[in-house]
């Protein structure tokens, strides 16, 4: 049996310039020049990622809002047209089926972008749950190409090829715009902890990828003066980890609730009813047994998923994501630990193969940019000039 691996519109570009891996059934670049270089390009300038492998659905109809408020945990009635929110869908037990960004295009039209690894599962779930609503759920993944343009120079880069004034598009806002002459859509969202946009080239079927390639190359050209780099999944993962963002399958799954993952801001208990509400309310009242925390390694060593976390010789949890941080130049991780040990500043150890390596629980995010003048380091806000003395790799 030979099933062909899925490809995005930019497969030929990736094959020519990148090191390919199989991810969620797609042949995708893990890096082009190298994870570290690509990571730093995004932190200090701009990078572009092909994320066309992600799932995209359009939800239209008279009851679109009510349907989404039932199936997701956040409140879409807070969204005015052309704005977006981070959210989750849960099962009846409150376990996360997926996390995603949902945008409101019109009063009765929404657009959802979710993880590639959950495409089939999510679409089936949305279809099932939509039966009692006057709503249409369409998978438009294969008709739209999607890129993330991220970094402090993202707006300046994208502006050069965009027909709309992007400075007027605030965080978690969106706009219809031409991108390199092609019909498109841009939202000020991302998965890197930097300012930036996710851009969508509309009406671009996989069978006819030219428009996507044209837009991709126009953005690369526009970003040249800021030393733009095409970035692969490797840098995408290290950037989101530094930014303290969850990766589905690692840090969250159907056995984890948004409360344990400490993304409770996406759970709106004031809503009349939503899938998982009862279970989450109960967990909220009873208190959490475990919580997601950030860890920095205090000695030599790089934490990796599934390694155990100890406190005074007692096992208190497990690492769910871990890497060498290209920006902070040390081992960082996310872990779930029992709530009584989740306090910031707690000294723990991570069992890395046969050694116990000292680590400390820190406030998330490890690093994120906040506007044009501030950054957050270990959960604390600094002026950029101040932060430069703490992070030698921070240049812009």
């Amino acid at each position: 049996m030979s099933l062909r691996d899925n490809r995005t519109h930019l497969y030929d570009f990736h094959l020519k310039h990148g090191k390919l891996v199989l991810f969620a059934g797609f042949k995708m670049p893990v890096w082009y020049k190298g994870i570290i270089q690509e990571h730093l390009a995004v932190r200090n300038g701009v990078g572009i990622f092909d994320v066309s492998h992600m799932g995209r659905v359009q939800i239209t109809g008279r009851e679109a809002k009510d349907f989404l408020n039932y199936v997701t945990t956040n409140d879409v009635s807070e969204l005015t047209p052309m704005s977006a929110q981070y959210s989750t869908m849960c099962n009846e037990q409150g376990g996360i089926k997926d996390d995603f960004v949902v945008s409101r295009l019109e009063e009765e039209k929404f657009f959802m972008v979710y993880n590639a690894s959950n495409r089939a599962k999510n679409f089936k779930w949305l279809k099932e749950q939509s039966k009692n609503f006057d709503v249409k759920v369409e998978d438009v993944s294969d008709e739209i190409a999607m890129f993330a343009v991220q970094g402090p120079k993202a707006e300046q880069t994208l502006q050069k090829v965009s027909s709309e004034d992007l400075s007027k598009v605030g965080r978690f806002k969106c706009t219809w715009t031409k991108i390199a002459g092609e019909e498109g859509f841009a939202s000020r969202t991302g998965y890197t902890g930097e300012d930036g946009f996710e851009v969508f080239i509309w009406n671009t079927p996989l069978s006819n990828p030219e428009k996507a390639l044209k837009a991709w190359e126009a953005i690369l050209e526009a970003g040249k003066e800021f030393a733009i780099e095409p970035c692969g999944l490797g840098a995408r993962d290290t950037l989101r980890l530094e930014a303290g963002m969850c990766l589905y399958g690692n840090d969250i799954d159907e056995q984890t609730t948004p409360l344990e993952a400490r993304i409770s801001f996406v759970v709106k208990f004031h809503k009349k009813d939503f899938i998982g509400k009862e279970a989450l309310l109960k967990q909220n009242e009873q208190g959490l047994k475990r919580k997601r925390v950030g860890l920095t390694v205090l000695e030599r060593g790089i934490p990796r998923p599934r390694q155990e976390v100890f406190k005074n010789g007692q096992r208190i949890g497990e690492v769910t994501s871990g890497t060498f941080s290209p920006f902070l130049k040390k081992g960082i991780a996310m872990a779930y630990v029992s709530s009584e040990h989740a306090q910031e500043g707690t000294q723990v150890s991570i069992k890395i193969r046969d050694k116990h390596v000292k680590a400390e629980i820190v406030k998330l995010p490890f690093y994120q940019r906040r506007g044009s003048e501030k950054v957050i380091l270990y959960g604390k806000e600094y002026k950029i000039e101040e932060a430069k003395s703490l992070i030698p790799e921070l240049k812009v």
Partner: protein
Amino acid sequence: MSTSYIVPNDLYYSKEHEWLRIEGDHVVIGITDYAQRSLHEIVFVELPNVGKKVRQMETIGTVESVKAVSEIYTPASGEIIEINEKLAKSPEIVNKDPYCEGWIAKLRPANLKEDLKKLMTAEEYEKYLKKIGEGK
């Protein structure tokens, strides 16, 4: 991407992509050009302790890139007599020069004649790499 790798003539090679060089009464070991290029951007090397007695193909440390962890298997049995301390601060040396500056450890071999029988010559290793490449 190019798939030709540097394989010096005077070394012995393991299937796990370590090399061994005989230098008088001791041997030097490291990882091959293929290994360092597969890992890409090495950011961490965990070295064995000097004095440790090891058996051929036992794990003696790890080489890590941002994303991947790769174990180092010793191509020879014996006692570790020196480690490349420079790699603690500058692991990227293994990428730049895997066969010289980027050596991992020196061993006083215990059973070299027998161990060498289980290793490949440069010619055999090149054939082996070709076979792996075709399997992809």
